[in-house]
């Protein structure tokens, strides 16, 4: 290596400066090790920033194909929506994919929803993970979901682009639930009151039906700084067999119960 040859001749002393001497051999191996570590770190960055997205998108596509969930159909928009008490499905087993999340604001993105917030098994597959401690969609309380802001499919990448009043639609148990964004906030990672039955008011008995999205904040590779929280409230629901929720195809839902 260059360590031996680069040294000026007059500075050579003893065996250490000789090409192939023990010190230069050690320095040479050390240099090669450092180069190897550098290459591996670079590879890790490539893997984290690029390959996890490729892999997660692939897995998400496969999960959605297997799920065979109802898709929005502009030709079959529901003429009636309901604002009475919605049906609520039983909590599924951990890891089970039980529904889909539709966000029109994010170019009509569709994401699978699975039970649990485990990184490897759920979130890293570009799925939204349901906090098992929170209620199921449509129920009184807070239906809370976690998702990646960056890498692994980055399903909640555009969380901050949401606006108050935007629809967030959950399909689960053959029911469409249409929630509307009513609050957004960045918090510290341990501020679990964001997913309390009444968001931000832990200990209060809920009377309304909420949805909460939690994701990383700010965008970047960090889990220590903050979380971005989107809170929404249930607007209306309808059985899947009644058609597509108007909000999923850019239409406005009738405001009064049943008066389409």
């Amino acid at each position, binding site marked *: 290596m260059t360590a031996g040859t680069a040294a000026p001749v007059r500075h050579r002393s003893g065996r250490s400066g000789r090409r192939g001497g023990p010190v230069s051999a050690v320095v*040479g*191996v050390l240099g*090669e*090790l450092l180069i190897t570590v550098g290459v*591996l770190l670079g*590879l*890790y960055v490539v*893997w*984290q920033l690029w*390959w996890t997205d490729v892999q997660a998108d692939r897995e998400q596509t496969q999960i959605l194909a297997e799920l065979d969930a109802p898709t929005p159909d502009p030709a079959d928009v529901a003429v009636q929506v309901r604002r009475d008490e919605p049906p609520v499905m039983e909590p599924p087993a951990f890891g089970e994919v039980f529904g889909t999340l539709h966000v029109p604001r994010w170019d009509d993105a569709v994401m699978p929803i699975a039970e649990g*917030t*485990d*990184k*490897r098994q759920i*979130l890293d597959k570009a799925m939204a*993970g349901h*906090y098992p*401690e929170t209620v199921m969609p449509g129920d009184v309380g807070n239906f809370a979901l*976690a*998702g*990646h*802001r*960056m*890498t*692994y499919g980055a399903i*909640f990448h555009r969380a901050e682009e949401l606006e108050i009043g935007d629809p967030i639609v959950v399909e689960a148990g053959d029911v469409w639930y249409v929630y509307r964004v009513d609050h957004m906030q960045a*918090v*510290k*990672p*341990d*501020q*679990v*009151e*964001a*997913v*309390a*039955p009444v968001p931000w*008011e*832990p*200990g*209060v008995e809920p009377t309304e039906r909420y949805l909460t999205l*939690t*994701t*990383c904040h700010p965008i970047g*590779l*960090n*889990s*220590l700084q903050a*979380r971005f*929280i989107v809170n929404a409230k249930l607007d209306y629901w309808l059985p899947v067999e009644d058609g597509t929720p108007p909000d999923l195809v850019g239409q406005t839902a009738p405001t009064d119960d049943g008066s389409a």
Partner: protein
Amino acid sequence: MYGALWRVLPGPAWLRVVLLLVLAAAVVLACFEWLFPVVAEYMPFNDPNVQTGADGALPAALAAAPGRLA
């Protein structure tokens, strides 16, 4: 280190280059499929959950902690 590897490999130079490329590809594959996912578990990146415990679970008595972080 790499000099020794070069000397250990058999065959003419072109074959050694091919073998080295195959080895490098194997190392990258092992990293992407096995090493990096394991390492990522311990990195403070990409955790979108809100939580307090190290186990990732929400505190059981979430509802019983009014104003804890208000």
